[in-house]
């Protein structure tokens, strides 16, 4: 979540300090959990030589124990290969709350409201229904934004792609189409929205238009071939393809069919983007086309001139990626990159372009076009749509703006260093 006043940040920081003390005290009394010895033949682990890891957005890391923790825990995109994110590296944004510890045998999903037949499902019930598996990205609406509490880190020349774009990941999600469940319940005339609710601490609630629910929303129990991870909503979550992360309600326990958006706390008070004139855009919903080069990217170092594949990821809430172009001369000329299959709708798409670095200073950037023909904008174009001047993106402010999808330039200096060159 990107919505934070500096006062809130202060209070969060002090919360951690206090919580940290509490944690120390606890372990001093000898309550540390015993680790069971692992049999890697039963459930595997990566090589001890691999260390890519998630990272908190606010530098509050490693986290202290306590009710509230770092907000966005980011995927190390600089280490990514292919189009899928391992579940263990999927970004986490739960407004700082720990995942609830849910026994799947106890878990229920209730569907009610403007339906002919209210229904309650166990996980086993849902697994009896026709299943689908779909490749989809999830993305926090604040991902890559220059504003809000992570703004300064994001525009710093030293930023890595994890810091600039790490609040998106892509998985194969398995489950039941929500439309199947809604048909079973029989949606009544006049219904136009639904309210989805989780079983986390604050019972996170999100309103979703019925037409989107019927189109492609999934009630998912599987991620990349296994049950969801606890921090991804175990045992059940919504996947709302292409829409702001906040819609994808985790630990899903209830869907109420209604006739108006319900204006729950997060959607009406935290997630709207505030414009310079003080008005707010709410329910921006669909994420626009975005791409970013993950190698070479910020903080990496090229050992010397020679051949490199320029590779990265592209995605769009509008559908499938049709084209990715790469420029190595600061945006004057562009070349079509290869798209690695499968190219799925509303999913990360891996692209690549062969490139020989001659050792001179260059700026690399990518831009994508989705199946609707929408092209990823430059930062100047975003400024134009928003009606702001370029210096707006540099101001330290607590204004939160979502859905920022400008082209990301990386500058390579003669020493091979790669630097964030957004501004």
């Amino acid at each position, binding site marked *: 979540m990107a919505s934070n*006043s*500096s*006062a*809130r940040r202060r209070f969060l920081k*002090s*919360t951690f*300090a*206090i919580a940290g003390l509490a944690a120390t005290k606890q372990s001093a009394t000898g309550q540390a959990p015993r680790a069971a010895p692992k049999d890697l033949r039963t459930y595997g682990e990566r090589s001890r030589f691999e260390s890519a890891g998630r990272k908190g957005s606010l530098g509050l890391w490693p986290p202290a124990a306590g*009710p509230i923790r770092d907000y966005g825990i980011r995927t190390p995109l600089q280490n990514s290969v292919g189009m899928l994110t391992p579940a263990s590296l999927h970004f986490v944004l739960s407004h700082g709350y720990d995942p609830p510890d849910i026994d799947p045998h106890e878990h229920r999903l*209730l569907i*009610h409201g403007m339906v002919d*037949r*209210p229904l*309650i*499902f166990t996980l086993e019930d849902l697994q*009896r229904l026709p299943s689908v598996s779909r490749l989809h990205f999830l993305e926090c609406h604040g991902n890559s934004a220059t504003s809000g509490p992570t703004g300064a880190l994001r525009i710093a020349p030293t930023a890595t792609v994890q810091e600039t774009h790490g609040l998106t990941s892509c998985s194969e999600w398995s489950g039941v189409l929500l*439309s199947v469940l809604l*048909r*079973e319940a*029989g*949606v009544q005339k*006049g219904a136009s929205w639904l*309210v989805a609710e989780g079983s986390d601490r*604050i*019972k996170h*609630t999100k309103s979703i*238009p*019925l*037409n989107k629910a*019927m*189109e492609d929303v999934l009630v998912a129990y599987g991620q990349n071939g296994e049950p969801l991870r606890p921090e991804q909503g175990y045992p059940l979550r919504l996947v709302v393809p292409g829409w702001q992360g906040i819609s994808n309600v985790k630990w899903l326990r*209830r869907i*109420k069919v209604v006739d108006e*958006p*319900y*204006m729950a706390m997060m959607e*009406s*008070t*935290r997630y*709207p983007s505030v414009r310079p*004139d*003080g008005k707010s*855009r*709410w*329910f*921006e919903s*669909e*994420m*626009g*086309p975005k791409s970013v080069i993950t190698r070479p990217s910020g903080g990496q170092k090229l050992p010397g001139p020679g051949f490199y594949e320029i590779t990265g990821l592209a995605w769009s*809430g*509008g559908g499938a990626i049709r084209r990715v172009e790469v420029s190595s001369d600061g945006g004057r000329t562009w070349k079509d990159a290869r798209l690695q299959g499968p190219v799925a709708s509303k999913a990360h798409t891996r692209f690549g372009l062969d490139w020989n670095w001659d050792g001179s200073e260059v700026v690399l950037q990518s831009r994508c076009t989705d199946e609707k023909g*929408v*092209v990823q904008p430059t930062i100047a174009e975003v400024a134009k*749509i928003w009606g702001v001047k370029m210096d707006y993106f540099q101001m330290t*402010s*607590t*204004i939160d703006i979502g*859905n920022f*999808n400008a082209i990301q330039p990386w500058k390579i200096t003669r020493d091979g260093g790669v630097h964030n060159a957004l501004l």
Partner: protein
Amino acid sequence: MILGASAAVSAQTPSYKNVGRSPSKQEISAWDLAIGPSGKELPPGSGTAKTGAGIYASKCVSCHGANLEGTATGPHLVGGQGTMSTLQPVRTIGSYWPFATTIWDYINRAMPHGRGGSLSADEVYALTAFLLFRNGIISETDVMDAKSLPKVQMPNRNGFVPARLEDISNMEKRGCRGGHCP
């Protein structure tokens, strides 16, 4: 396809035998927390800022402060008026929240933090009245109940685009393009 969706759905009959079951009325009402702007699910009960002040002092003050100014463990609940068009906008009930029903809904489901769902309907009405009063929106003696709460005019109700709830899901009508709404 999009607009006709709801009509098409309602024509369907169940096609999967004995999958899922009908919940009882009690099961539904135990979980049916969500309160929309129309307030039609608001339960019976009532409260005023006067009673709310006492409940606040015993159940909320430790985190939100004696003057609702916030503490290390909870955010401020007042202030922010006039900041929305500055570089440091401060979103509070008084400066930002568009609907009073959201306050009721959120306190009821989430507060006190970590013990959400522990307050009675009367307590939630009283606390909502107290927060509305301390944000300068209603008077200390105004009674908040299922009828009056949805009618409270929030100061920033017109601070959103689009203004009409009916237009919210229609991204094209709103002029949104490429992931951006102007």
